[in-house]
């Protein structure tokens, strides 16, 4: 069962960094209306760097496992580093080749984090 490798099922059944984050500067929810997957990213920011990150969500194994894996690598990364994470890296983390439909599930967590950063910067620049 290559698609649902042990690692994916492990992250799906026991997600890392799952839950809310008190004092988070970023709380961003993104969803995939096509299949109902939903991910909320919570992150604490210090000088354009991810100090802490957690996620909440519901949906398919691919979307939840990839968000869990993402939180493991995103901690400590700068905004610039998060912006430059490519879909190939997420695929590598999952260890599977995904078709055009399922790749959207795998990228949902990353998209939420990247959009959350943009929203954070816009808020900061507008002085809100």
């Amino acid at each position: 069962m290559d698609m649902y490798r042990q690692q994916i099922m492990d992250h799906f059944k026991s997600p890392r960094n799952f839950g809310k984050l008190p004092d988070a500067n970023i709380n961003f929810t993104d969803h995939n209306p096509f299949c109902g997957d939903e991910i909320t990213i919570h992150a604490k920011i210090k000088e354009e760097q991810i100090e802490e990150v957690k996620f909440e969500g519901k949906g398919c194994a691919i979307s939840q496992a990839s968000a869990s894996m993402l939180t493991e690598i995103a901690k400590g990364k700068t905004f610039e580093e998060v912006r430059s994470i490519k879909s190939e890296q997420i695929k590598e983390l999952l260890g599977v080749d995904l078709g055009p439909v399922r790749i959207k599930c795998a990228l949902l967590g990353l998209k939420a984090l990247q959009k959350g950063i943009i929203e954070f910067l816009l808020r900061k620049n507008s002085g809100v």
Partner: protein
Amino acid sequence: MLGTINPIKELINLCNKNDIISVIDAAQSVPHMKIDVKDLNCDFLAFSGHKMLAPTGIGVLYGKAQHLNELKPFLLGGGMISKVTRTETLWNEIPWKFEAGTPNISGAIGLKTAIQYLEEIGMNKILEHEIELAEYCIEKLQEIPEVTIYHPDSSRIGVVSFNIKTIHPHDATQVMDKEGVAVRGGHHCAMPLMQNLGINGTVRASFSLYNTKEDIDILIVSVKKVLEVFS
């Protein structure tokens, strides 16, 4: 999506009594049951070749002549005019008015052959076979306590929608696919129905004339495989 056969004749009657034009999407029914546009007395009815053993890229739009005569061409090109002068254009007669340019010749021959093949077998026989498969599938799925079947009763065609525990249908179908079972997962272009049912989607098995009870036995094994992977 649930295999329901809608009371389409009643609905068309209602339309006709209230001066409403009826347009029937019969892409899911023409391949599986006998449809008579004259008996239905609908204004328009459409179906697609690719759902009935024919090539992709071809389908049929039926319309009452009086409506088709009133409609303007939607596509310009060779064959759809009867006369062109410097000051006016006269459209060709129906159906040529709507068939501009080089037609999809191979598609049309393929669709005709598919229709002949289905009619030779007999639409009633096909429907009977598919209902028998659906009933067998429902019976077998009901033996698995983790499976929820949506709409397991009343009049239906050969379609069975279900979920396995709360496993996302996209996860379930991917595992089933690896087991050699082709089913569709998701909302099946029926999002409002999903909202009514309070779910994200379903796994849907659709049967055709070429399926057998052995195929359903394999499907049941693949459902058990899903339970094993997501245990």
